[in-house]
């Protein structure tokens, strides 16, 4: 037993030395997470406002002016360009000078009085974010303007100040200001852990294979299981260091809240890391060259970014797409990490996700180790 331990620790040491020697990669591994976090935190903003807008007010009446003022005040639309026809508005959008357009028809004033005023809002459909934001903003503003007009009419007709009979209050749980960083930091932590565990394991294995070092190691008395452990432990350590760096930055620099239990978080993260390493081993058994391993890792990265709930909510994805996301372990980890960090919930609410990760880790590891052993022999 003692001999075995010596062998394994020797392998671990060798792997660590290799990792530390490759300073370039090391820098990359430690720096990339931070880079990504800063990037996501500052760059990601889903709602577009100050949309450059072209306006054609053909009515020149009071109601039109009020409506346009409301659009401007909302800060969703910047009424920069004033033209005199619908065609000119469309041309401004085609040119790319404006992303939205408002056309107020000549008879708007009278129409509003009659109760059937219509405003035309044009949106540049080539940019999805603008369209979403613009659509929502335009309809909301039109609606509130409608209500304002109605209220005014009522006051004029003699009805005493009729206020809206219904008041809606909205409270946002966990993240009252809907702060993007609170949302992204846990996501980035998860993403990077996955990237790191999968790619570094896969690459290191394949690289040795390619360079032929594998044969040399096989000559030593080390058993294949020792080899595997020797490969995995340093990568686990690296992943943990990375995790702490990213998390630390998130909490102390970005002031992202950490509501729940750190112990629970550590335990579940470890489980996730193991499942990631298992996947890395799997990728390495299926790739003959480094290029292949790289391709597979990149694909996994791509899929993970989109299908796992990192940015885009999974609730509305079609079943087939959701299913693919269900196969990726980080999907469950996202729920766990957001649950602990942002919501502050405990095991009681997350045991299903935790169980899935555990099973995943065990299964993948077993399969990977078996295949790996077979390959070595």
């Amino acid at each position: 037993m003692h001999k075995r331990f010596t062998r394994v620790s020797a392998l671990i040491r060798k792997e660590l030395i290799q990792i530390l020697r490759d300073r370039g990669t090391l820098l990359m591994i430690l720096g990339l997470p931070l880079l990504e976090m800063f990037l996501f935190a500052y760059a990601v903003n889903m709602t577009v406002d100050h949309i450059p807008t072209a306006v054609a007010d053909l009515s020149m009446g009071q109601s039109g002016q009020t409506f346009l003022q409301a659009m401007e005040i909302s800060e969703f639309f910047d009424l920069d360009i004033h033209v005199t026809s619908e065609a000119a508005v469309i041309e401004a959008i085609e040119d790319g000078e404006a992303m939205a357009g408002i056309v107020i028809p000549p008879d708007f004033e009278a129409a509003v009085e009659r109760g059937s005023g219509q405003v035309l809002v044009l949106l540049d459909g080539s940019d999805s974010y603008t369209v979403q934001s613009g659509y929502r903003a335009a309809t909301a503003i039109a609606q509130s303007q409608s209500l304002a007009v109605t209220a005014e009419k009522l006051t004029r007709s003699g009805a005493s100040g009729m206020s809206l009979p219904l008041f809606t209050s909205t409270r946002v749980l966990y993240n009252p200001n809907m702060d993007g960083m609170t949302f992204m930091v846990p996501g980035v932590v998860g993403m990077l852990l996955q990237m790191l565990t999968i790619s570094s394991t896969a690459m290191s294995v394949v690289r040795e294979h390619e360079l032929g070092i594998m044969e040399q190691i096989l000559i030593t008395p080390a058993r294949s299981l020792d080899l595997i452990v020797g490969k995995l432990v340093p990568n686990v350590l690296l992943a943990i260091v990375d995790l702490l760096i990213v998390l630390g930055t998130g909490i102390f620099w970005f002031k992202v809240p950490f509501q729940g239990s750190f112990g629970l978080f550590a335990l579940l993260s470890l489980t996730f890391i193991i499942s990631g390493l298992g996947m890395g081993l799997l990728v390495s058994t299926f790739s003959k060259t480094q290029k292949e391993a790289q391709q597979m890792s990149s694909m996994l990265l791509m899929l993970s970014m989109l299908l796992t709930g990192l940015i885009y909510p999974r609730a509305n994805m079609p079943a087939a797409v959701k299913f693919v996301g269900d196969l990726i372990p980080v999907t469950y980890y996202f729920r766990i990490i957001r649950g602990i960090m942002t919501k502050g919930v405990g095991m009681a609410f997350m045991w299903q996700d935790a169980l899935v990760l555990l099973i995943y880790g065990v299964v993948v590891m077993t399969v990977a180790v078996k295949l790996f052993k077979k390959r070595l022999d």
Partner: protein
Amino acid sequence: MSLLRIWTVTQKGFIHILRDKRTLMMMLSIPMLQLLLFGYAIDMNVDHVPTVIADQSHDAESRAYIESVEASSYFDVVGYVAGPDEMAAAIDRGDAHAGIFIPPDFAAQLKRGDAQVSFLVDGSDVLTAQSAYAMAGTLGQNYAGQVQLQKMEAMGFQIKANPIDARVRILYNPNMENIWFTIPGMCAMILQIQTIALTAASVVREREAGTIEQLLVTPIRPIELMIGKVIPNLILAMVNMLSILALGVFVFGVPFQGSFRLFFWLSLLYSFSGLGLGLLISTVSKNQNQAQQIIMAVMLVGLVLGGFLFPRDTMPQVLRIIGNIFPLTYFIPISRGIITKGVGLGMLWEQVAGLVLYVAVIMIAASRAFRQGLD
């Protein structure tokens, strides 16, 4: 410069690629897979938010309100709970992302004119939270207006429902089809990733394997080697991109409004930016692992800042400037402009000029670095 020598190296590159059937398969199928997933997964429009309702009023008015909530496609009622605490618990568990609480005296309050409804929204998911927040407000306003109207009519006032109606017309993509948004961006992304990764990988691999020395012994000149290496990857990447485009246009029915010829030539130009970047990366990486890491970094940063996944308009100035370092940033407006809007060179000349400059600079830098690296 000898065309024959260039052609030989090119041929060698092709043989390499074709021999590696598995990688080839992967490379051709992965983008298609991505397209299918991208097209359906990225949906910025968050509606049908799973919602629980705590209706403590249980009268006709509260039911009418709940019905109006269900009728809008904003919130999907997934369950009824007893009260606000249970609502919060449901959101904690993740069973729902929103909750609506209707207090006990709803009908009477509505009549008096001071009814209150409370929405609870899951803030751990910012996209959903922002949408739900906005939708809650809109719904509330809408319903309140309707109730008011009914009251008015009951009192004998003749007031029309919506004196101001905004008719929204969305140019180029009237139905806000998700995949129409994604295809142009995907073409840009795939071309960029493939050109950079393939080029860097092929050069570094040879350097690692030591075959570069063997090549240098031949009468081939560095520039010819460079061109020969670049061409197979260029063709592969273009084929990839075009097959995605074809898939989008012929299978998903994405309209291609502009000139295909223009798009083709501009894509070719754009590819050279990636090829140049790939070459540059290959000169600064000592091994495949490093190259991969650098590529991943470039990819990540470029993707986030380029304007495909997130809007550039809302980014702080600094990040927008950094985004200009990536060729993706220039090509996405070009791609969108030609495919979705159907505009021509006239509207796109700024981006095209930027791209031309970029390619020129990078190819010069890359070839110089490449030649130096060989010595």
